[in-house]
């Protein structure tokens, strides 16, 4: 077995690195930069039942070591995602994690059914925590019961494994995680963005047209690592960890915290080649230290091992 490979529900990954949803579009722009076959998996942009035009501009702003976005789930709608966006990705030997969002359980069930039956995706990722649209499902992201009900409903119609993407905007992330685990989730993705905002001091007004946006990037990494650390000790389904990853050390931190795979979001914008760079760096590191991804997973909380 390869040192880097990991097996997650629905996704046999060559390595634990995948781009995060919304930070890789549908892969087209990156496919012209490097061979996508290098990736552990690809998470595509959220699909909703109908096309969404997204929010007014500006949709992005920078903060210290972070960025705010309020894209607003712009996407061509699930039918076009299936007919136009996903087929080009089939040429790669890489699992596809399809992110879905909606404003009602029916929306999620609808897109989940369509996507999972399209034969084009390996697993679903339920974005129950998009902070950037009025009806973006944020209520599911902070209430364990609605999250569980939603998970259950989607599991019933989905023919592929279902990952639930958790919001950090909660006081009890472990409760959320356990609720969706009991409802049948096959895995967790965490974290989505923190809700933040920036005011233009020249005008006194919010910079984003949407007023608030989702905070991502290195600034949020300590929050993400803490949540993965906490949740991984209380659930038995695998976690795709994310939030501020941009270096090999960050990848290791998430694996040590208990993540089974690590997604890279914002860093794709700063450095479009970040994913293959991290994959190479991790391979080299594992080789040098004679470790495997599974051996280092959760090391921060597992009883001391001889390897240390």
């Amino acid at each position, binding site marked *: 077995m390869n040192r880097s490979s990991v097996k997650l529900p629905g996704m046999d990954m060559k390595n634990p690195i995948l781009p995060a949803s*919304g*930070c*890789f*579009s549908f892969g*087209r*722009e*990156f496919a012209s*930069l490097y061979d996508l076959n290098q990736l552990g998996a690809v998470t595509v*942009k959220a699909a909703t039942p109908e096309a969404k*035009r*997204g929010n007014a*501009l*500006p*949709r*992005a*702003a*920078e*903060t*210290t*070591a*972070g*960025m705010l*976005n309020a*894209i607003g789930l*712009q996407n061509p709608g699930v039918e076009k995602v299936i007919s136009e966006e996903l087929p080009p990705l089939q040429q790669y030997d890489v699992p596809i994690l399809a992110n879905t969002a909606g404003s009602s359980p029916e929306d999620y069930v609808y897109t989940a059914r369509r996507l999972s039956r399209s034969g084009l995706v390996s697993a679903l990722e339920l974005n129950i925590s998009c902070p950037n649209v009025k009806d973006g499902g944020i209520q599911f992201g902070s209430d364990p019961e609605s999250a569980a009900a939603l998970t259950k409903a989607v599991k019933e119609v989905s023919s592929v494994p279902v990952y639930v993407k958790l919001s950090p905007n909660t006081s009890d992330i472990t409760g959320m995680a356990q609720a969706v685990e009991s409802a049948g989730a096959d895995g967790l993705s965490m974290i989505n963005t923190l809700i933040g905002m920036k005011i233009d001091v020249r005008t006194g007004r919010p910079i984003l047209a949407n007023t608030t946006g989702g905070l991502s*990037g*290195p600034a949020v990494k300590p929050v993400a690592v803490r949540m993965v650390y906490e949740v991984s000790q209380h659930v038995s389904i695998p976690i795709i960890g994310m939030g501020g990853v*941009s270096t090999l050390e960050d990848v290791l931190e998430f694996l040590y915290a208990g993540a089974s795979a690590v997604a890279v979001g*914002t860093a*794709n*914008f*700063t*450095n*479009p*080649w970040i994913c293959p760079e991290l994959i190479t760096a991790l391979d080299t590191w594992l080789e040098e230290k004679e470790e495997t991804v599974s051996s280092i997973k959760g090391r921060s909380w597992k009883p001391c091992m001889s390897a240390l």
Partner: protein
Amino acid sequence: MKKHAAVISSKEMIQENICSMTLQTDEPLEARPGQFLHLLPPGEGRFILRRPISICEIEETECRIVFRLEGDGTKAVAKQNSGDKLDVLGPLGQGFPDIQSGTVLLIGGGVGVPPLLAAAEQLHKNGVRIQARIGFADQNQVMLVEEMEKWAETIVYTEDGSAGRKGRVTDELETDNGFDTYFACGPKPMLKAVEAKAPASGYVSLEERMGCGFGACYACVMEKEDGTLVKACLDGPVFQSREVLL
């Protein structure tokens, strides 16, 4: 698009808050006028988004940029010295069309002027007749006038009259029938006025806030007249006049 570890070969503050920099890349950039570079301000993880800066002059592996110190990012870039490296992505976006004949009017406001200089040089090579109207807030913002005059009959405006003509680049535009098409670059209100007033159609280059700069983040999506959506970074920053809703 490539990532370059460009070396700063010279840096000069041409106004109190305007920096002119020459960058040396390993390979020729092969950029067109109107395309831009995406600079990562140095800062060990402090800066997350790159800064879009237009190409102002380009020749083989050497390229000049001219930018105003706005916020922390452009200030951090301007603090670098010759010999320092700069992380540059580019060239990005669609540039100005390669007009081969007739008269082109260049209309630039503030930091919209640098890309027009690149365009002027190219148009001159093509044998096109070039006129330029470039406008600034005041004399402390005026830049690239001599360079522009090399290629174009140039009129300088300042809003307060402290240099050149008092007024705006669009002031006498309605009655100017001396050009076949125009290239405009500047703040949105200026571009709107240009589109409204110019007797001919032309091309506008937009300064939209960007995330990635190469089409991946959807931060720069704009609407066309027909309702379809385009990305300013990928499908622009240069568009035909009235093509996108400003």
